[in-house]
């Protein structure tokens, strides 16, 4: 006879685990990863490998220093560091091999400082991958803004974009020469490893929705609001809507970074407000700075999450209906007014 166990209710639990969710996120990233490697070749693969290894090693070494038994480290490994490494690397430009220290250091920063220092999975305030990218951007500005290379597939429309990315051109007032189809497929588009091929990201998005890791509305709100506000800020030219949302890291950030559980509000009401605000901020920052600002915007928004999740909550089942509440308030005001007269 085995030991009889006592535990708290409920004794049956759903099969879903944190690990399984993280595995789903990894699977969802795979198409963007493959697209990045196909487009940008060895450099892309190199960057990704360094970032993932750096993230995982940082977590393990941190735990070793904290004297967590090795057995536990492996048992408790929940794949989040792999996700962080992948997301971080895919949001970097296809950097030259000589810049190997950029993904390495950003990985250490992302996991070591942003996640482990705050207490590990679930305790971080800001998104590790996003912050890692911002860290890289600020620390290695030169390398981060000049490492663009042409993808393996040229544009279908035959145009060649040189130098800066499509988005920076567009924000500077230059109409994009690449077709929307090019922007969607990523052909001929210079940019970060995982951000260029929107179709690959979309496959990941559909997978996440089907697996119920995220709700379909989440990224749609971010992208939609950003696009709308962006168009309004840029002279109400609606032909810019598609190029505006298809260029840069918006879709990538909206699907993979903004949907991160830990750094967004847990209840859906607050979450929707959060995404609308995020969209507005992205568009404003893009306008204000003239460069891609998705990661900065997400980072900023991460900081107000605690506020949102505490103060924007649905009303419990059986609360006085909102309409009645308002009516009662008015009735009271009326009475008070009456007395005063």
């Amino acid at each position, binding site marked *: 006879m*085995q030991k009889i*166990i006592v535990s708290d*209710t409920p*004794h049956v639990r*759903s099969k879903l*685990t944190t690990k*399984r969710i993280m595995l789903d996120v990894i699977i969802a990233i795979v198409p963007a990863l493959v697209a990045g490697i196909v487009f940008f070749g060895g450099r892309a693969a190199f960057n990704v490998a360094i970032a993932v290894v750096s993230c995982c090693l940082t977590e393990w070494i941190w735990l070793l220093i904290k004297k967590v038994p090795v057995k536990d480290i492996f048992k408790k490994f929940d794949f989040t560091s792999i996700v962080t490494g992948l997301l971080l690397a895919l949001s970097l430009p296809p950097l030259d091999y000589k810049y190997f220290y950029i993904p390495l250091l950003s990985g250490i920063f992302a996991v070591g400082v942003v996640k482990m220092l705050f207490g590990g999975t*679930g305790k971080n305030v800001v998104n590790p991958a996003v912050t890692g990218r911002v860290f890289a951007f600020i620390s290695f500005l030169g390398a981060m803004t000049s490492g663009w290379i042409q993808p393996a597939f040229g544009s279908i429309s035959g145009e060649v974009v040189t130098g800066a990315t499509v988005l920076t051109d567009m924000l500077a007032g230059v109409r994009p020469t690449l077709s929307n189809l090019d922007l969607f497929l990523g052909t001929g588009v210079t940019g970060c490893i995982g951000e260029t091929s929107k179709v690959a990201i979309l496959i990941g998005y559909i997978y996440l929705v089907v697996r119920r890791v995220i709700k379909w509305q989440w990224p749609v709100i971010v992208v939609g609001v950003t696009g709308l506000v962006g168009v309004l800020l840029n002279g109400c030219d609606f032909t810019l809507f598609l190029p505006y949302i298809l260029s840069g890291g918006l879709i990538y950030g909206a699907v993979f970074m903004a949907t991160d559980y*830990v750094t967004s509000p847990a209840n859906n009401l607050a979450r929707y407000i959060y995404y609308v605000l995020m969209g507005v901020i992205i568009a404003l920052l893009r306008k204000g700075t003239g460069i891609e600002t998705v990661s900065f915007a997400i980072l900023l928004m991460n900081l107000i999450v605690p506020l949102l999740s505490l103060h924007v909550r649905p009303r419990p089942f059986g609360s006085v209906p909102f309409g009645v509440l308002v009516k009662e308030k008015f009735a009271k005001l009326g009475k008070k007014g009456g007395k005063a007269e």
Partner: protein
Amino acid sequence: MKITKGKRFSGGTHIPDRKELTADIPIEIMPSPDIVAISLSQHIGKPSVPVVNAGDMVSVGQLIAAEGGFVGANVYSSVSGKVAAIEERYNPNGTKSNYIVIENDKNDWSAQPLPEMEDKTAGSILQRIRLAGIVGMGGAGFPAAVKLMPKQAVDCLIINGAECEPYLTCDYRLMKEKTDEIHTGIMLLAKALKVNKVYIGIERNKPDCIKAFSEYDDITVVDLKKRYPMGSEKHLIYSCTGRKVGLGKLPADAGAVVQNVATAYAVYEAVELNKPLYERVMTVSGKGIIHPKNLLVRNGTPLDMIITYCGGMRDDSAMMIAGGPMMGPTMLSSNLYTTKTTSGLLVTTSDEVDMSGPTPCINCGRCAEACPMRLQPMLIDFYAQANDFEKAAKYGGVKNCINCGTCAYVCPAKRSIVQSIMLSKKKLAEGGK
């Protein structure tokens, strides 16, 4: 033929019901045990007061303890024999209460338990329900008669046939085998409550019961989606009538009184057969039980005797649960006894129950989405862990929690949210708030 579809409430979740273990097994009468220990606290309210002494001879259906106050219930002997002792023993949830221990002489000798009823007016039915010691048999054990005398005017009676806890099939078998009797009991309840609107809510996984009850013209069958916690009073009322019970209010404030099908059956027995409540149907299930069964057991039957009667436990049994797996407490030993509210005894193997232990909350929001009360379970858990129970109440809404466990069920991090909830409630109550 009146069947309506239940109204959908937000939250809740689908849980594999695992009722197939016992759903097709007819109710079997468990032979009376050698000894019974009958609790004096089988209901919510004041403990009952013994009216027999150690050494007395009692008969089946004899009053052995009288209600200890308005919110209280009479207790009857379930066997004939000698009162061996009146002493403290453990309850399944780990607390202690007084028990009347009776040695069974197996004569099953029974004096005429309750007098014949002269008329069946609302008042006399109420009186009989009270006399027979009937309590809510779905779980809480609130004295049925008290519930039938609400302070507010009510206009409908709702019968709970949802049986949303996994594994349990005792209500299902009762509805299937005793349809007419339950119907009679329901109409008696309606008469006592003086209402004409009667609903019976049955989950869709029991289509035969839905059909069976739709044959009666005087009740409306509500075809409920299979969704946990459908059997929660507040959510059942909403599903059947569309009315919401206000926060901190009673069902009667929404004009409804809810009773369970097993209670309706007990009412039938008390009124028509003059039989007080001293036995009930329960489900003995789980993969750890060799022969899962639906049993008619006498009040106070030792659980280990029930397990032995069902062929014993498998060697790899891991957990014993009193009631269903969502809300029932686990038990360390089977040296415990059935009561009026014991709806199930589960012995599960380790692959049936979750024992993986908690990992850090990833703030995914699944708990909040699944909470039928629309609370913020992750905040309750967070603040309870941080010993800040005021905030658990303010931001998490723990005071409105119905302890259903849906949040913990869906949690991918397997947080012990219910434990945090219980702790918060306890601390808040101690704080005098």
